[in-house]
């Protein structure tokens, strides 16, 4: 680990100010991902601004009938919240399928969104990786890339975003609130937070330097069943090979792209009356494989219709009619 300095932010505004004014600074909250990356010298910030104790851990009702989840709310806290469990079960299911109990106790909502890829070449500093060392090349492209992206990859990067929570939030149509260096707050759809790799895979999000995520806002739950299904090599503490979040007619996929993947084509097809199988086939028309990850296309083709059917039958069971 490289030497670094540390400060505990007094409030959100001063945290943003410090991050803007200090070169090579990073926010830290739960630290479940950043500290690992610092130990391996994949991340080498020279200054840490601890935002973990800022009073942004609440979960409150919005006027629209949704929930506003503070950025510092831990993953465990959100997953266990009675309102989340009853109105957004897909979110609870997604959160508890990620990490381990210990990690979820420390990890925060904002930090979860900003966790970095689990690509093995990103983690191995002896290998090229455009995300870790821009311009060094992509070790995964022609490597052992079984768990790489099938949507939106570039020749510079085929890594996937590892969050489960974010996939459910994208399916729920969540938006994210940030505090900007200008001092102003802004809000935008969560599905616009992360970017595709293109030529700059080292940049994970559209946040401007110094911007701090303060909350995630869930709109009222959509009509229809919800479910999160994650396929993985082992039953816990394992990255997804593919995952899907269903919230009514809204579908998002995980572990298939550089960002949580809103399956817009599939949603449109479903909206036009297509069968689940037809809908995911429409989405997969845009998928491409990179060497060893071709199975993920088959996996998604099989997984998503099964999940949609399960969500529908759960909804029908609860409401006595087919949604």
């Amino acid at each position: 680990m490289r030497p670094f300095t540390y400060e505990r932010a007094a409030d959100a505004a001063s945290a943003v100010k410090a991050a803007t004014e200090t070169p090579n600074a990073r926010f830290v909250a739960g630290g479940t991902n950043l500290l690992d990356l610092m130990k391996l010298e994949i991340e080498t910030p020279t200054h840490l601004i601890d935002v973990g104790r800022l009073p942004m851990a609440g979960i409150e009702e919005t006027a629209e009938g949704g929930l506003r989840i503070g950025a510092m709310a831990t993953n465990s806290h959100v997953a266990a919240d009675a309102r989340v469990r009853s109105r957004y079960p897909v979110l609870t299911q997604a959160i508890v399928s990620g990490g381990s109990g210990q990690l979820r106790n420390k990890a925060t909502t904002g930090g979860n969104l900003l966790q970095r890829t689990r690509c093995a070449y990103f983690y191995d500093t002896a290998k090229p990786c455009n995300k870790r060392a821009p311009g060094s090349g992509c070790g995964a492209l022609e490597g052992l890339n079984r768990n790489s992206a099938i949507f939106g990859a570039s020749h510079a990067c085929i890594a996937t975003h590892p969050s489960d929570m974010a996939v459910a939030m994208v399916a729920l149509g969540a938006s994210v609130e940030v505090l900007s260096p200008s001092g102003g707050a802004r809000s935008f759809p969560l599905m616009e937070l992360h970017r595709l790799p293109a030529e700059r895979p080292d940049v994970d999000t559209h946040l401007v330097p110094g911007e701090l995520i303060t909350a995630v806002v869930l709109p009222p739950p959509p009509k229809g069943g919800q479910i999160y299904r994650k396929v993985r090599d082992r039953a816990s503490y394992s990255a997804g090979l593919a995952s899907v979040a269903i919230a009514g007619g809204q579908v998002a996929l995980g572990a298939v792209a550089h960002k949580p993947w809103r399956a817009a084509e599939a949603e449109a097809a479903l909206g036009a009356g297509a069968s689940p199988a037809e809908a995911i086939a429409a989405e997969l028309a845009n998928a491409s494989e990179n060497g060893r990850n071709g199975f993920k296309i088959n996996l998604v083709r099989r997984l998503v219709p099964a999940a949609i059917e399960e969500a529908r039958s759960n909804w029908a069971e609860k409401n006595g009619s087919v949604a």
Partner: protein
Amino acid sequence: MSSVLDWEATPNPVKENRAGNIGKAVDRYEGPLKVTGTAPYAYEVEPPSPPDYGVMLSAPIAKGRITAIDTKAAEASPGVQLVWTYKNAPKQGPRPERYDFFTPSPRPALESDQVYYFGQQVAVVVADTLENAQAGAALVELSFEAAPQSVIFSDHYDEADQPPGESDIEIGDFETGFAEAPVQIDDIWRTPLQNHCQMEPCATTAWWDGDQLTVHTSVQMVRFAQNSLAETLMVPHKNVRLLTRYVGGGFGGKGSFYEDLVLASLAARELGRPVKIAFSRQQMMHGTVHRPATEQRVRLGATEDGHLTAMSIMTTTHCDRRGNFTEHASNFARNLYAAPNRLTGHRLVRLDLPVASAMRAPGEASGTLSLEVAMDELAEKLGMDPMELRILNEPPTDPETGKPFSIRQLVRCMREGAQQFGWDRRNPKPGQVRDGRWHMGLGMAAAIRGNFLLPAKASFTVDADGVITVKQGMTDIGTGTYTVLAQIAAETLGVPLGDVRVEIGDSELPPAPGSGGQFGAATAGSAALDAGMNLRKAIAEIAVNDQASPLYGGPSEDITFQDGVIAISNRSERLSELIRRNRPEGLTADGEVRPAADAAKWSSHTYGAHFVEVAVDTVTGEVRTRRMLGVFAAGRILNWKTARSQLTGGMIWGVGSALTEGNVVDARYGSLINQDLAGYLVPVQADIGELDAIMLDEVDDKANPMGIKGVGELGISGAGAAVANAIYNACGVRVRDYPITPDKVLAALEAQGR
């Protein structure tokens, strides 16, 4: 030299078990220290003065040489005490042509500019703090010239050759027997390179006092490591005191030792201060040893009614350029099933990969993953129950050598397991049982693992408080050695368990070979029993010759030892009183064990049967185990709790071997890609479900004086095969390329049009 017949005929306190200490579910002797974090592992040992800390640098190429070194910036970095590469590392004993497991020899570190495998240690930085050492290490500039490398096993099958000094073993005429068999199985299985992933990485704390070195490290074999280290440092063996009090897992990976031990010892001598060096988790993957990959061809020929007429398992495997390790995946098949025509053997490829070596049940762990699945396939072809097929082919004597079995309860393991598990509920037709979206299946496999006894010594001391202290240069790698030695001592001397102290893991104690090959308990325990018997005799002689003792003048062979009291019928006194009067400084007796001269007359193994229920999601290809039961026959069990823990631990590892574990090699870099415990997937709690191990009542009087055998490696043998067989029963898919991950299950399902 003793004879097996003497062992069989001679009673001893362990066999008699009057106080009932033997077999009991005794809690771990060192358990409270471990769970309260007060058992100091090697890196945590507090040296006599503040230590320096070393950080090693690893080669980023698989083959080639170091072409340029610049350590100036690192040397100038705050707190850095020394920076060593091959250019300036101290002179060490020369590396022998080939290593073997039991001959101590030098293991020099940083020995030349040559790189033999990715992750080889090529430099060390020692500084006043770990952080300064890490910061300094980041400033070391090393340039390398890579040479063409051969790292992909499957690309080099054509280079495979007989391992040195070995030949195939053929009984009868295999090819003819196989060709003439009306029912045949001929398939190929592949197992991947695996890593031990011990909880505790290799680590050392070392310091010198004059020319005397004290090292605390994490190894399985005390004397071997002590002597090899001394020869590396070019000092007399006696100048090295090596301690390994607590070991956080070995599994074969700590059978030898690595650069942490050598470099910490050298740096401590150079700096005149204690030095600590540990491997990182990532360094453990490449820089230590691994279980090599195998390709196994199994051929079985049988009559229509299920009698095996021909059986062959031929294994191709790999080791490093300078090594001589062979993964003997075919060997266990020589002793398992009857078949008149048999062919077994191995082929070895040398690759530019890290060092191949032993990992839990070397041979059996990989080999059962093929043969025990082939038996399942054969049973299906024959329309037989796979357990009944095995029972039908149960040999009356060792199928290869014709030797009598010391004892063999494999059939009983299967029958008992079948009954307890509900094997009769298995539908032989795959894919018939559902639990929601999950397809359920049952599978079973046999387990076998050899039994060994090596020479060992021990000493017992009784003090004036009647406390027995066991001393032995043995290790406890998480297996329960401390605890079973205490039980043997308590039973032998007739004292309460709380009046026994156990000192192990120190080269100054009577030597024992250490932990490995599941020979630890039998070997160390038999030497301990002998020391205990000798101490009994010494105590008895003192008692009958002590006029102050109520036992004075009695026949010494009639003395009983019970509850800390020695007695001849109704004459008695406390053991402590006798010792206080006669030997206030304490009384010590030594003991030892050697393999019996006639031990080779019997075929001696441990056996078991695994039963597994799995659930397969045929939409996603995911496999989850629901229930596992193992039934084992492994001689007398010393401690129900620690033995069961080892067996279930092995079974869990079998699940990992079947479903998740394996390092993949990137051909371009010659490196393993999954380098941490988030990438190398061992089973977690959620993967296992219901799990139990049953140990049959058994005594193997031909194994050693206590009639015990080992359990450390038996549990993994066959466990993965039972999982694979259950997967087939659940969904009709055979994946012969381990691990059986969702992508492979999906591909097999899709190949069937599902």
